């Protein structure tokens, strides 16, 4: 049997994530700019629609958009790519055996690396366009948030990848599901414009908790403990569920994919 130590798996994860990013950027700096520019362009579109045309009452709206949309893009892109990861790498899954849970994780890590590469631009936007001071606390807050987001996204990515092996329609449905979720979460509008009686429903959303934690870190330089803890607690639950799903399905994945 294949013997895999944690060190060997970590190296394998790194190679897979690097391959993913390389394929995405095609080894060019311009490729990186395109990938980062896409999220900025999307933020610009929302800015035109909501701020310029609909006159949304939200202070520092462009910073609000940018600081939320990058972690959101990380989550959605990683999950959608993960959903494809088994099916698209079928020969690899067949050849590598039991350790294939590393495949969707490599999507999450690749998108994290992409997010980290975009950080200087996000921070530049927060400081230059938003007029916020850079915070020394970011040095620990951002790594904590990175870890939290990996813990939050990986169970989703793993579940998508496994489910898509058995139900191929998952992948096309994900895009629609994430769009719905995007507008159901305060991403392009602040929670303050939502009618008061609905607030507690929005506060129940772990997606809101996670994304708002990111925004608070970037904009206020503080880690919103209530939101972060809630997102972490949800990650533990979804993590356990995804693990159970993985245990149940993984032996058959190689032959089904």
């Amino acid at each position: 049997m294949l013997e895999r130590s944690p060190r060997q798996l970590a190296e394998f994860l790194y190679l897979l994530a690097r391959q993913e990013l390389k394929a995405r950027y095609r080894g060019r700096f311009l490729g990186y700019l395109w990938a980062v520019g896409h999220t900025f362009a999307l933020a610009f579109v929302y800015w035109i629609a909501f701020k310029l045309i609909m006159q949304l009452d939200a202070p520092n709206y462009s910073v609000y958009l940018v600081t939320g949309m990058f972690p959101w893009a990380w989550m959605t892109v990683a999950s959608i790519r993960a959903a494809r990861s088994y099916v698209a790498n079928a020969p690899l899954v067949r050849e590598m055996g039991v350790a294939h849970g590393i495949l969707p994780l490599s999507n999450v890590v690749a998108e994290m690396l992409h997010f980290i590469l975009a950080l200087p631009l996000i921070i530049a936007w927060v400081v230059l366009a938003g007029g916020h001071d850079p915070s020394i606390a970011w040095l620990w807050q951002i790594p904590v948030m990175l870890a939290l987001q990996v813990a939050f996204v990986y169970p989703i990515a793993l579940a998508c990848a496994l489910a898509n092996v058995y139900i191929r329609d998952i992948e096309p449905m994900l895009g629609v599901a994430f769009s719905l979720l995007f507008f159901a979460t305060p991403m392009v509008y602040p929670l303050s414009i939502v009618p008061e009686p609905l607030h507690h429903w929005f506060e129940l959303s772990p997606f809101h908790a996670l994304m708002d934690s990111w925004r608070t870190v970037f904009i206020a330089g503080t880690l919103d403990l209530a939101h972060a803890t809630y997102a972490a607690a949800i990650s533990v639950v979804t993590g356990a569920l995804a693990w159970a799903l993985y245990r149940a399905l993984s032996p058959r994945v190689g032959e089904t994919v």
Partner: protein
Amino acid sequence: MTHVVSCEGIWKSYERHRAVGLKSLLVGAETPRSDTRFAREWALSEVSLRVPRGQAYGVIGPNGSGKTTLLSILLGTVRADRGRLSLDGRVGSLLELGAGFHGDLSGRENVFLYGSILGMRVAEIRRRFDAIAEFSELDSAIEQPLRTYSAGMKARLGFSIIIRSQADILLIDEVLAVGDTRFQAKCRLALREFRARGGTLIIVSHDMKELAEVCDEGLCLDLGRVVDAGPIAGVIARYGERMEGARSRA
């Protein structure tokens, strides 16, 4: 004699685990049940084999007889429904041409990726890289993206990686046929050296000449059952007669 590879009474069915779509969930999937060559209930039934250390073992049989399924079960990527299985040592495999290879990465990067898939450490791959590149004879093409490679070049790269890895057991499925004659001869020589070092080889092929030359023993599968086993020359001869008989009946 110690057997490094042994399996006993392996049964495998693919019937119950098929990917479904929204349509089949809603409308209900039809389950074809027939005992034809490619759509029978048991992909493998009651398959047993034992391979001692240093032996080369050939698996033959018509298309759809379960050869690749057997190798996948030995590799551990497909789980048998019943039966006992034991492999003693590190396994290297070359099951599908280009499996685990990534078209956008260079040959060099693919060596690292594939080595990692096989369970090797990066430091180990780095140490062996020159030997792998040399064996492949790809020269400067090893820096080119894999999508520019021909099937023969991919086979060279794949074979070079597994033959220069630290595997004790090699599982090879039908991939040597794409190399040119000279490279095939080189592979056969390398496999002989591999066995001389105590390596064990299980090989699936339709090239009877190659099997006769490389293997000591073997088995013949048909419809998922072992219909013949023993010294390879006899197995090949009887397989030829069986195929001949099938043709004259048809």
